[in-house]
């Protein structure tokens, strides 16, 4: 009996031992399976993280400006509309930053009837010179109002002066830029084709135009004041390719050798004052004076008389703009802007012909509805220099044009 009981007891113990080993083995298998699954998940997470990191290097931003404009009567031909809705800008900006200090930017504009490439450039931080960057491609010329984004600007359009001397704002070329991290200086030096209007992909002459800008920033935190002072210089030329006749600024006809360069050179001074006064106030201005030229596009085979009638033009010009911007609380902004542009400083009145000067007062109100939406009310009141040539425009009864423009814009930005 004892033997039987002992045998039975040992069998039970043995079975238990066997059963425990089996459970442990089975658990080991389960753990091993889960370990494998976790490792596979880990690998997948790493792959996903790597993909996400690549996507994080691409930034997409953009804005759409839809507006309604009402025009003064002299801006409209008989039976033409006095007001219109239209899309002023519809841009998407793609920025890719593959590594620290390297950036590629592409910005097309999709506004109706105006599909165009606005920006296409690469920016590289110069090795060992962390405050210096090299830009290459198509981008804004180095000027305050040019570089101040249309999505931020407090009035609907840039000054007449800036639109005249920097058409389309962009140029194709290369730029060296220094933004001091220790000293408050910004320096820009750009070499460009010098004739970009948005269509011509290549230069039309061999000489490159050079533009330089230097800005020094003064900060007075205790007074809540910041002042940026700067100067610009533009050194370039337009080649007289087909016509030897030149009409100088003073109205006197002259001549050059075909193939010579017509002068295109100016200097500017700028100031921006930012004051923390009852919600922020800014006073910004720029003055530019110099010589600009327009080469004749007449065929080289044209007659002398035809060439004389359509000569190259070299004009002395000057102009300035002043902005007064006052923030009203966090969401509103009042803007008064005055700008002046005289395309020919040597002649005035009737003698100026079509090169009359313009003084423009613009009043505007901005309402920042939220992070993305801004509503702008803008009233532009240009006053032209009185000249007989103005009165000769069809339908204009006075030497003073009635050409005020009221604009209401909604901007959506992301």
């Amino acid at each position: 009996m004892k033997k039987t009981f002992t045998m039975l007891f040992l069998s039970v113990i043995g079975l238990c031992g066997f059963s425990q080993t089996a459970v442990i083995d089975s658990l080991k298998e389960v753990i091993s399976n889960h370990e494998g699954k976790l490792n596979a998940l880990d690998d997948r997470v790493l792959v996903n993280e790597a993909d996400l990191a690549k996507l994080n290097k691409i930034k997409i931003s953009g804005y759409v400006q839809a507006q309604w404009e009402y025009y003064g009567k002299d801006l409209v031909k008989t039976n033409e509309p006095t007001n219109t809705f239209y899309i002023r800008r519809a841009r998407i900006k793609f920025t890719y930053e593959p590594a620290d200090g390297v950036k590629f930017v592409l910005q097309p504009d999709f506004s109706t009837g105006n599909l165009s490439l606005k920006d296409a450039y690469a920016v590289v931080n110069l090795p060992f010179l962390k405050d210096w960057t090299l830009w290459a491609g198509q981008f804004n010329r180095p000027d305050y109002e040019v570089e101040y984004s249309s999505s931020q600007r407090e009035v609907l359009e840039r000054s007449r002066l800036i639109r005249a001397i920097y058409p389309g704002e962009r140029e194709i070329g290369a730029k060296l830029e220094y933004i001091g991290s220790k000293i408050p200086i910004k320096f820009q030096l750009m070499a460009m084709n010098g004739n970009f209007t948005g269509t011509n992909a290549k230069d039309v002459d061999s000489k490159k135009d050079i533009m330089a800008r230097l800005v020094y920033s003064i900060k007075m935190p205790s007074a809540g004041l910041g002042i940026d002072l700067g100067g610009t210089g533009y050194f370039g030329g337009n080649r007289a390719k087909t016509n030897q006749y030149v009409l100088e600024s003073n109205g006197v006809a002259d001549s050059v050798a075909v193939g010579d360069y017509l002068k295109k050179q100016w200097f500017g001074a700028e100031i921006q004052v930012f004051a923390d006064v009852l919600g922020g106030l800014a006073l910004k201005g720029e003055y530019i004076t110099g010589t600009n030229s327009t080469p004749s596009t007449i065929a080289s085979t044209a007659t002398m008389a035809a060439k004389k009638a359509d000569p190259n033009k070299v004009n002395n010009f000057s102009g300035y703009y002043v902005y007064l911007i006052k923030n009203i609380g966090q969401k509103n902004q009042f803007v008064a802007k005055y700008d002046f542009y005289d395309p020919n400083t040597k002649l005035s009145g009737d003698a100026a012909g079509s090169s009359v000067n313009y003084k423009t007062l613009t009043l505007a109100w901005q309402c920042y509805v939220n992070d993305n939406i801004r509503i702008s009310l803008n009233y532009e009141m240009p006053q032209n220099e009185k000249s007989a040539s103005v009165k000769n425009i069809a339908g204009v009864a006075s030497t003073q044009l009635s050409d005020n423009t009221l604009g209401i814009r909604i901007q959506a930005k992301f």
Partner: protein
Amino acid sequence: MKIINKIAATLMVVTLFSGSAFSQAKITVKGSDTMVILAQKWAELYMKNNKTSIVQVTGGGSGVGITALINGTTDICNSSRPMKQTEIEKLKARYNTLGVEIACAKDGVTIFLNEANKVNELTLKQLSDIYTGKIRNWKELGGNDAEIRLYGRENSSGTYVFFHDVVVKADYSSNVQSLPGTAAVVNAVKKDINGIGYGGAAYAIGVKHAYVKKDANSNAYVPTAESIAKNDYPITRYLYMYLRNRPTGETKKYIDWILGSEGQSIVTEVGYFPIK
């Protein structure tokens, strides 16, 4: 057009005589995760003593706070790094001010090591090499023959930017595991014998502080009140509050309190260092 002229002129006059004194009963604070525990402690104590005030604190990172300041969705931005020039330009464009920078505490960016790690001391160069992936094994630094596992912050973090600009000075290695907040970094290093992380001094609990020296010939320091005050610790920084405009009303009262003795004693209590 004459009517429009009149409307425009009236608008201008009204504007010029109007102010911007929009008082705020509630103060919103957003930004640095490094500063969240400090900012929450400040808010808690301030509201306890000023029953009518509401101070709402959220983190997200210095970058997030600065964006919120520019977008007008926060009154105060906490940042563990100075504002970049590009960010100041955005403030200028939107609010026509340069913003107001207020240094409210000091911090030593601490290098966290697992307590079992044999390595105790690192130079700035070695830290840079570790975080750029040039040094990959602890044995190169006198430690065990084991791969270094890197823990760091997300790129919206001010600490990430500060550590990059002052220590790493090149691209971070792709092996850095980005974690949301210094507490997560500390936790990861606590569990990982081969881990290394960085972050605000106030979070270093359960991990070892590495002694840091400027170069091989300098003295090594850990962030202490003395080494921070004397600027001996090589990765010392200020912690900032940023505002769009000079503070007025309740916001001014709150900031004055933070910069006063009571506010600064909380800085020490939390584990950071007072500005004076």
